[in-house]
């Protein structure tokens, strides 16, 4: 069986629908051998390989999937970002442009590997587009909060990440996508609240400060909100796709959609504005007496 991918796959509502359809086509296929054909693809955003890799991981358990029809520029890009070497044992190429954050999949137990990955691939990269130290720290903080959220709530086998810098865009931006194929936000929130919220309503609930589905002795309910507050200040963008929910914030507005298809996990795509010169100081930064902090 051959599955043809469409011409354009962007990090937007339509792009995520295409990827949900890819998952559904694979689910509905009775063939053991499936060819994923890229010959019609003119443009695909590299960070989305985290989503494609996550989808393939589910279906590779029962199918033999091959990749065909890649144009030379896509072969080059997916070799440099290690997608082809990780998922299809192709040869790995060196990223001389230093514009990628490689495709990786992490076991939820490998927290130190993820810390090393962010340090090496993001914070310590010499050619990472110029930004202030403070901005780099805030970006890393948001990514770690998201990663911990995926580890804790998704209860998944792996977490998939991939990123791309766009140093020639104005402003310069960094897109990073984190995917887990564990329980969706919709399932987690509805099981916790014992309600029947839509995917969008469940995402909105999870983003509110203090809301958490955790019931153990480790409190939660701050991480997503901290990421979201920073993206608002940074004038970046955040998209969350989980089950049938699509939620996007890009200043000054939030857009939500209930999708006709469904994603069997959670995708978070964040776009950071690297030209942001702001010095981030948090509210109440001064005057917190440490002898009475509890």
């Amino acid at each position, binding site marked *: 069986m051959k599955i043809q991918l469409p011409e354009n796959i962007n990090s937007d509502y339509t792009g995520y629908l295409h990827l949900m359809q890819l998952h559904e086509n694979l689910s509905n296929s009775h063939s053991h051998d499936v060819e994923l054909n890229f010959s019609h693809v003119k443009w695909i955003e590299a960070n989305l390989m985290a989503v494609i890799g996550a989808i393939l991981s589910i279906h590779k358990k029962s199918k033999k999937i091959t990749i065909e029809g890649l144009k030379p520029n896509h072969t080059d890009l997916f070799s440099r970002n290690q997608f082809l070497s990780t998922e299809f044992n192709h040869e790995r190429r060196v990223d001389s442009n230093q514009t990628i954050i490689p495709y990786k999949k992490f076991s939820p137990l490998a*927290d130190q590997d993820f810390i090393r990955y962010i340090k090496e691939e993001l914070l310590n990269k010499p050619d990472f587009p110029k930004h202030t130290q403070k901005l780099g*720290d805030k970006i890393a903080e948001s990514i*770690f909060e998201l990663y911990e959220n995926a580890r804790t709530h998704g209860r998944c086998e792996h977490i998939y990440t991939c990123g791309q810098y766009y140093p020639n865009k104005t402003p310069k931006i960094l897109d990073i996508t984190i995917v887990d194929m564990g329980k969706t936000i919709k399932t987690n929130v509805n099981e916790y609240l014992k309600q029947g919220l839509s995917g969008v309503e469940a995402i909105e609930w999870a983003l509110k400060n*203090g809301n958490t589905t955790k019931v153990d002795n480790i409190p939660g309910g*701050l*991480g997503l909100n901290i990421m979201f507050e920073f993206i608002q200040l940074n004038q970046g963008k955040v998209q969350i796709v989980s089950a049938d929910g699509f939620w996007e914030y890009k200043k000054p507005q939030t857009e939500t959609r209930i999708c006709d298809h469904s994603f069997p996990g959670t995708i978070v795509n964040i776009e950071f504005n690297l030209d942001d010169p702001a010095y981030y100081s948090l509210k109440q*930064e001064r005057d*917190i007496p440490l002898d009475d902090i509890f």
Partner: protein
Amino acid sequence: MKSEQLVVSEMIGVDMAVSTDDGEKIFQAIDQLLKNNSTVELDFSKITIMTTAFLNAAIGQLYSAYEGEQLNRLLVFKNLSPENKVRVRQVVERAKEYFANKKGFEESANRAIYGE
């Protein structure tokens, strides 16, 4: 009462206090020392980035076993940047709410199940 020092960066082996697992390590160490009647000085020197995920496990979790008044007497923070002080404050406020709600939830569940 003995006073013990825990240096976070030495205990977790990195300068980024970001994972729940590393937070759990710190919680276990603090809990053990407090149970042994020591006071604890928690030193954050060399820590650059800190997340609420780490702090929820390391500090927020303390409210499952201790009261705020006890923690003010027995646990002291050192070398906490102004920014990270804000994070600690957020996590402490959240932990108080979380355990107050959890207690309320468990009491109402007990009433419903056992009629207590």
